């Protein structure tokens, strides 16, 4: 436990001091990985713990992003950057979740997809959200007297927030509530039969995941300085889904590793060759066939064999 805590602490510290040793672009990549990592972790709470495969998680990412963009343009403060996006995303997750948890399996997948696509269509078409161009020129907030427009400050802010989000999710999956979720994933019917109001737990999980996704979306807006309707598009959900699966479902750090693998593969390979889709596709296929359980599964397998 202590070793693990030290390990995590070392990782956070390494992420924090990364700009001191790396160039601007690697830092950007790291920041992007961190933001997507939060998003992927929030999806993993549904996917890997509650067994709910959502294909519409982009709805909350987009809502967080848009609310942050609108609010930061009004007043660049922490309230706009973090509290409002999280609240609105939570509310949206409550409503969408209320309808979606009535069905399961492929129907759940498609219903969540439908909701996120409706948001996409709306954001794409209405002028007050900037239509397909989205909202650009979003200022970064001021927080506790710190100006996040400063690169170093923003990096630290991001690292701290991502670590906080990870900590929160880590506590949640280990809490009694998290154990209930795992029970639901394992055997929903039996959980119901022993007396759990399964729907309520699922809805709560959906809302928590949606809220964290909203924070991720807000961080994304702050990171890029703009938000476009693509944030809502199903491919955003799809990519997060791939990240979680590649990393290994049901392990939060797997989601972050998956985000790292996905973003590094996509950005670096596409700088080297036009055939990056082929390479990405082959990677997925080989992964499924030879590394079930994702990156974490593969790592664990190796460690296990050595031990």
């Amino acid at each position, binding site marked *: 436990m202590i070793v693990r805590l030290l390990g995590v602490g070392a990782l956070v510290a390494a992420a924090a001091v990364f700009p001191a040793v790396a160039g601007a672009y690697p830092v950007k990549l790291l920041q992007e990985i961190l933001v997507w990592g939060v998003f992927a972790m929030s999806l993993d709470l549904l996917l890997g713990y509650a067994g709910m495969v959502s294909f519409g998680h982009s709805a909350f990412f987009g809502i967080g992003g848009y609310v942050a963009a609108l609010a930061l343009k009004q007043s660049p403060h922490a309230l706009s950057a973090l509290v409002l996006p999280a609240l609105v995303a939570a509310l949206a997750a409550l409503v969408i979740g209320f309808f979606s948890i009535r069905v399961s399996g492929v129907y759940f997948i498609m219903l969540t997809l439908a909701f996120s696509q409706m948001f996409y269509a709306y954001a794409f078409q209405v002028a007050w959200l900037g239509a397909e161009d989205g909202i650009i020129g979003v200022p970064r907030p001021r927080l506790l007297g710190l100006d996040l427009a400063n690169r170093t400050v923003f990096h630290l802010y991001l690292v701290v927030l991502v670590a906080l989000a990870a900590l*929160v999710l880590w*506590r*949640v999956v*280990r*809490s*009694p*509530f*998290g*154990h*209930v979720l*795992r*029970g639901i994933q*394992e*055997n929903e*019917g*039996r*959980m*119901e*039969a*022993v*007396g*759990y*109001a*399964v729907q309520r*737990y699922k809805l*709560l999980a959906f809302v*928590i995941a949606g809220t964290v996704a909203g924070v991720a979306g807000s961080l994304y807006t702050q990171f890029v300085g703009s938000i476009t309707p693509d944030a809502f598009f199903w491919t955003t959900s799809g990519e997060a889904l791939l990240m979680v699966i590649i990393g290994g479902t049901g392990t939060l750090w797997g989601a972050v590793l998956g985000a790292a693998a996905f973003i590094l593969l996509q950005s670096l390979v596409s700088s080297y060759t036009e055939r990056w889709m082929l390479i990405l596709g082959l990677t997925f296929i080989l992964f499924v066939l030879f590394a079930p359980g994702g990156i974490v599964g593969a790592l664990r397998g190796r460690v296990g064999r050595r031990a």
Partner: protein
Amino acid sequence: MTLASPVLLIEGLTRYFGALSALNGVSLMIAPRERRAIIGPNGAGKTTLFNLITGHLAPSTGRIRFDGAPITGLPPHAVARRGISRSFQRTNLFPKLSMLENLRLAAAADGRGSYDLFGSIERYRAPLDRARAVAESVGLLGRLEEVAGRLSYGEQRQLEVGVALATSPKLLLLDEPTAGMSPEETQRMTRMLEGLPREVTLLIIEHDMDVVSSLADRVTVLHYGEVLAEGTFDEVKADPRVYEVYLGGAG
């Protein structure tokens, strides 16, 4: 045996599947502390009866009262929370979780603490203690950390009952707890069931007549969705209609 205030009262329970009736006007009265066996040939509607009681199915007509209050149409979790727990004919566990966790989840189903988002399960002693106690009473104390899916079949059946028991039910429904067990395993299961506290009212579907005779106070025979006979084991055994159903069906 007092019939004054039955723990479970079923009146005219009927369930159709399309045009077929799986259960047809069944009425039952189970007294507190009673141990009742439900027997009958395959397709007699025994499991359907359980499913109706626990809310897994909605009745077409009829009423169910538990502890004096109507429970007809309640969802399964609400029924369970009122004190009715069940085991399943097909083993229905959390195969990737440890045995202790299987029992603890059931024991914690009273909801206290299960919405705690940031605490740890160690903080809630009662479910853990209950899980250990149940593990002991179903004879599995030695294998608390074993993953449920890796237990032997007999152990899984014991755990199946254990999970049902861990919720501290007033009424325990057991759906063929000895199904597929070897004679020794069946014996062990029977002893275990006999040892259950009398406060737990028992409704058990069972094919093994030795189990029924040693366990049940009274027996209800279902046939084609209707109550064919009811009485003590000996009374039922002596009933020519029951003889007809079993032997006639077999012959």
